[in-house]
């Protein structure tokens, strides 16, 4: 496999974590413009864990998940009375505040292989885990992709659970949810927190892959892209966000002559797709229809 191809797949895998993160929040009925900050925090935590603290990748990624989830938990509690545009803007503000504070964190240590540690606007350099552990690009792709797939399979499995069905009801119609005794607060906080953790995990992987991170990498546009992927992909099924990722990075990037105008094309494509598929390509309605056909087949 060529390096170019491996790199593209890895990029797709990493940004899928943000897309899935946005998807989880869409399920409970909110739009978040802030997932990129949790991605960034996850990146810094894993960077710190593997360099300054010399920890194992599994522990590092676990910390990334937990710390990002904690920040997301804070956000979910602060925004308990907000929804719609208000929640979206609050998530954006929260994310930017987190990102801007990364510019202020400076703690570096000199090592034989260079300076490590968060260095404000200079970023965090020399995240050498993949070199120290002789991880080839193909190996890393396997690591990243298998974690992503494991999580997707978990989500697919959970789709038929009461938890997720209730969460979707909370997202669709809070009033009906309340009338059957479902407490929206619980689901909102739960899913927003989980979403933060997922983004953080992805960020951790990103830090290891890129070997260098800085606050400007985790700006609003990153989150907005992830959100766009899950929206055009559709919130009917966990594979939706992946479809969105594929459309943008997969299709447009690979067709080289288009890649310069990618944003122009992609922006227009999203708006166009939304005209035809207002709920995304894999819309909840489509999923229901397919499920119904399958049931009829098994009954017949």
């Amino acid at each position: 496999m060529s390096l170019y191809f491996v790199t593209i797949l890895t990029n797709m895998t990493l940004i899928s974590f943000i897309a899935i993160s946005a998807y989880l929040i869409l399920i409970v009925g909110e739009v978040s413009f802030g997932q990129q900050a949790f991605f960034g925090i996850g990146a810094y935590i894993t960077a710190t864990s593997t360099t300054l603290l010399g920890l194992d990748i599994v522990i590092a990624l676990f910390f990334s998940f937990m710390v990002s989830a904690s920040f997301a938990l804070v956000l979910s509690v602060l925004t308990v009375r907000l929804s719609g545009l208000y929640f979206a803007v609050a998530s954006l503000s929260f994310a930017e505040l987190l990102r801007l504070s990364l510019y202020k964190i400076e703690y570096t240590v000199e090592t034989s292989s260079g300076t490590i540690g968060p260095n404000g606007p200079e970023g965090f350099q020399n995240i050498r885990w993949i070199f120290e552990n002789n991880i080839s690009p193909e190996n890393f792709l396997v690591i990243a992709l298998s974690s992503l797939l494991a999580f997707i399979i978990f989500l697919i499995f959970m789709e038929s659970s009461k938890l997720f069905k209730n969460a979707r009801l909370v997202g669709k119609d809070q009033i009906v949810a309340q009338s059957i005794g479902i407490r929206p607060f619980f689901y909102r906080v739960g899913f927003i927190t989980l979403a933060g953790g997922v983004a953080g995990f992805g960020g951790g992987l990103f830090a290891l892959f890129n070997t260098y991170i800085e606050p400007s990498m985790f700006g609003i546009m990153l989150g907005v892209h992830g959100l766009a992927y899950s929206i055009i992909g559709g919130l009917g099924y966990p594979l939706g966000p992946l479809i969105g990722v594929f459309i943008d990075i997969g299709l447009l990037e690979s067709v080289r002559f288009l890649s310069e105008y990618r944003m122009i094309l992609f922006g227009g494509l999203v708006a166009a797709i939304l005209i035809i598929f207002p709920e995304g390509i894999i819309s909840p309605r489509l999923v229901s229809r397919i499920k119904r056909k399958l049931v009829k087949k098994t009954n017949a």
Partner: protein
Amino acid sequence: MLELKGLKKLFKGITVLNGVDISIKQGTKIGLSGGNGTGKSTLLNIATGFLTPEEGAIILNGDNITHFEAWKFARLGIKRTFQKVRFNEALILKEQLYTSDEMIKRNLDMLKDAGLIDYLYAFPNEVPLPILRKVEVIRALLECPRYLFLDEPSAGMAATDLHEFGEFLKEHIDADTCLVVVEHRMELMKKIDANIIELRDGKLDNGNIIA
């Protein structure tokens, strides 16, 4: 027993409810009538926790639940239906009962009576309104509510449908369950032998204690 004491509700300076008092014992069937805009739905919303009164209290079996959120009311056994049926256009009806396959099997005759069996796998836009209304009732009944409030269920129903709906209610609502039907069409309330009370000028007449 569910007690509503001195409920007052204002909307932008207009007093809609001006001291509503009523005590509802389990098992009673009540028809709440009143012209358009008299506040019947408002009262229902307050009694089920979807609106908070400016003044007054809601006491359930001695506990003050006035400021509980609506989901808590539901969990305490106070359930309701909606004036305009609220369904997710993207889900089949079976999913929208929010119950287990077990429960569906156990209540097969109730579903048959409602004519729901044929529509379990249908989307809401493929289903006639009277059946949708019954679905909302069934969804509530599956959880054995102590108090069931129906919000103008006759809206959009022809006389025959209404008759059938009344039969359905008589057949499937226990003697134990308290039923409050907010309506301005009398036929339904008469059908289920409800005690009819009227909301007028923000207050209820015909009654303080309902036995």
